[in-house]
């Protein structure tokens, strides 16, 4: 079972490498939207430093949504989803493998790209580890909730439009706690509880989202 799980993840990583432009697209979108804010808000360092956590979090969420509708959509269109579900792996684990691949190809690069963006927006160096810790948990939550949303809208017309409408409301708690942790750190308040709540959110999403996504995949192939 572990062998099949790893094989699906590896296959998706290989596919992501072959389609390098698609994979980099999300990261470039993240950096580009992040750089638009100083242009739109004016170059005041104080303002940008204050807004940096929110900008980075919102841009990261939107960027991570970009590849989601292809996550299962491409598999459904070419018939691969039937074969994946017939591998002998329970559908929730197939979904979890795809979500893991999404995190490795989107969440992890965004995490790395957040460092230069944070420095550019003037985030204090002390807050950077907390931003990354929050984003680490938050991007995992987004891969899980996003994968669940993607499997639910699978096969729907205009699924790409429906997907953000479904996923973004679900992800708002992660956004609130993630951004609050950085705010707390920069004002000298304890930031631990915010990250702990994020971790709790992840702990809830880890078993529940793959279950829902598995049911979504089963319904999509019917």
């Amino acid at each position: 079972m572990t062998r099949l799980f790893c094989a699906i993840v590896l296959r998706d990583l290989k596919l992501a490498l072959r389609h390098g432009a698609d994979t980099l697209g999300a990261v470039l979108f993240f950096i580009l939207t992040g750089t638009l804010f100083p242009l739109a808000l004016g170059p005041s360092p104080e303002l940008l430093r204050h807004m940096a956590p929110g900008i980075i979090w919102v841009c990261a969420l939107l960027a991570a949504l970009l590849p989601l509708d292809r996550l299962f959509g491409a598999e459904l269109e070419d018939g691969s989803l039937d074969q994946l579900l017939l591998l002998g792996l329970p559908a929730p684990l197939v979904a979890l493998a795809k979500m893991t691949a999404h995190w490795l190809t989107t969440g992890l690069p965004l995490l790395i790209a957040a460092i230069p963006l944070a420095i550019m927006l003037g985030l204090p160096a002390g807050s950077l580890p907390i931003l990354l810790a929050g984003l680490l948990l938050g991007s995992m939550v987004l891969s899980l909730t996003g994968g669940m949303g993607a499997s639910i809208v699978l096969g729907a017309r205009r699924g790409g439009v429906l997907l953000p409408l479904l996923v973004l409301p679900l992800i708002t708690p992660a956004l609130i706690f993630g951004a609050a942790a950085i705010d707390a750190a920069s004002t000298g308040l304890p930031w631990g509880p915010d990250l702990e709540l994020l971790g709790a959110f992840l702990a809830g999403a880890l078993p529940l989202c793959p279950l829902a996504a598995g049911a979504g995949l089963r319904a999509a192939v019917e």
Partner: protein
Amino acid sequence: MFTPEQGEDGPAPLSSAPPCTALLAAESLRVFRGDRLVLNEISLTLCAGEAMLLTGPNGAGKSTLLRVLAGLRRPDAGALLWCGTPIAEDTAAHASRVAYLGHQDALKPSLSVRENLSLFLTPTGPTLTQALSAVDLLDLADLPARLLSAGQKRRAALARVLLANAPLWLLDEPSLGLDANAITLLGHAITQHRAQGGMVIATTHVPLPLEAVRHLALPATPEHLAPLWDDLADDTWPDQTGATA
């Protein structure tokens, strides 16, 4: 116990069931697609080494029946049994008993044939080289799938069926796009599979090189519904009135 149901309005029953224990048994399957009844009271049994061809006009539900047998789709009524146990009890276990070849070849264009198929390797089954040489595709194994012709893609999909090392093969139009040579290879593969006690259910519109094959003809429309549709106004059911004609 597993003899096909011979209901008054069911499809033509199969030839009398051979004296063997049925591994796969379907009893009075019914499947709706939207509001339309595609499969009505379909019953079949299959024993080790047997092959069955599903025939019927387009839209008769041949592909739907294969998907139901694969466990991809739940029947809306009726029972589907493997060795007497309902397959819905453990779909993951049933999935490992089934090798399904769908309409689509399910190959990723950017991956090579070898990379495409490596996911489907099983510890006990044939190796990639064995499976690829069985469909005469070894020379092209390292080419990206997007460079293959339609027939070559079909052969790669057939290699995946071989790799699955599953007792039940469900083949939806396996000969689609294959040349005469490849159809002979397909016939060999099926014969070998049956000799090892495997079972095959295939849909086809062209003759396949199969011996001692049973046939299950699916009716174009479930019979008892046909008179109902005749009574309806044309504009109510525009697509179905054509099917009953």
